[in-house]
């Protein structure tokens, strides 16, 4: 009889098990991780961005980064191309010091099963040719991004650096 009660107790514990909520520590769809470097330095030196605004050309709100040398930007999981405006000093109130470069990311997508709670995730692989195309905006203001290099073309998680930008 004691055994039966013990069993019932175990069952009741199992009923409480929560695996319906996707845990934030589970690696799911990654963002593109970009590290910024000083273009003028002879050796690779990290350089922080100031009030960098990243925004979709069709959106009115973007993501701002200030005083960091590593940023994460989202890629579209529904298309093989994501275009983002990278505006130096764009997220401050002063519009006169802005310098805009448009980056077009070209990649292929792979949908991978994660778990019951998280469903699937999208993994991206930047194209071998023209992975990132730098475009000047309609009103040309010169390129502030001097060089872009791909560190890791296949994006698996956010604990790795995928792209280096020199400015």
């Amino acid at each position: 009889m004691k055994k039966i009660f013990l069993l019932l107790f175990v069952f009741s514990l199992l009923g409480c098990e929560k695996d319906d909520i996707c845990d934030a520590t589970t690696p799911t769809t990654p963002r593109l991780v970009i590290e910024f470097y000083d273009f003028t330095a002879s050796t690779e030196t990290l350089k922080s961005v100031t009030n960098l605004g990243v925004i979709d050309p069709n959106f009115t709100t973007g993501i701002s980064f200030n005083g960091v040398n590593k940023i994460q930007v989202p890629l579209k999981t529904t298309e093989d191309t994501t275009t983002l405006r990278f505006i130096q000093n764009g997220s401050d109130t002063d519009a006169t010091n802005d310098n805009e470069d448009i980056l077009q990311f070209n990649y292929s997508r792979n949908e991978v099963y994660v778990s019951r709670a998280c469903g699937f995730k999208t993994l991206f692989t930047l194209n071998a040719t023209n992975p990132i195309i730098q475009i000047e905006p309609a009103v040309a203001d010169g390129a502030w991004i001097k060089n872009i290099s791909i560190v890791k073309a296949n994006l698996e998680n956010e604990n790795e650096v995928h792209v280096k930008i020199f400015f």
Partner: protein
Amino acid sequence: MKYTLKYSFSLLLLVASFLGNAQKVKVKDSIKPKTERYGLRVGVDLFKLTRSFYEKDYRGIELVGDFKLTRKHYIAAEIGTENKTVDDDRLNFTTKGTYLKAGFDFNGYENWLGMNNMLYVGMRYGFSSFSQTLNSYTIYNPNPYFGQAPEIPSGEKFNGLTAQWVEVLAGAKAEMFKNFYVGMSVRLNYLVSNKKPDGFDNLYIPGFNRTYDGKFGVGINYTISYFVPIFKSEVKPKEGKKK
């Protein structure tokens, strides 16, 4: 004549005494020897059967059987088929397959002679062969700057999947009418092997039920079964004295 009468009377007495003797023997004979009934009990799981009616996305049936080996030991088995569609937040899939569980039950209930009620614990080894169809899924994006992606229809089917597990169970069976038993059992399952599809998971296994992150699972059944008596065996007096 007098002698004849005397003779016949004594003869009658003699016969009567014989008759009496014979009757005594007969009375002794009519006391039934203590017997234990053995047989096959077959039934159906009402839980799965009724679920098939009220749950749109579920079809299933399970047949159960047990056979009494000794007063306390039974061999037992379940065989079933399930077709279940699960609609989770991010996944929608259908599992189809059949399963077989075999093992034993240990009866802890002291029955009166001839009765087969049970309060038991038992073990099973389960085997299931099934397929999974991924109907649709959603991409999880913790940073939905571009908005959450819509559900993506798939229809991809994964065939030839198998799983094996061990069950520990506890339950009861009681005779409601002559030879008709109702029963229920709760089960704790532990996966021994699980052949997962490439690029998906076995989130439901026929017979095992829903899988969790670990290897454990739970089950339950409500049965109604019929006892088919096959043979009786006399209980040896020694066994009676022990009681």
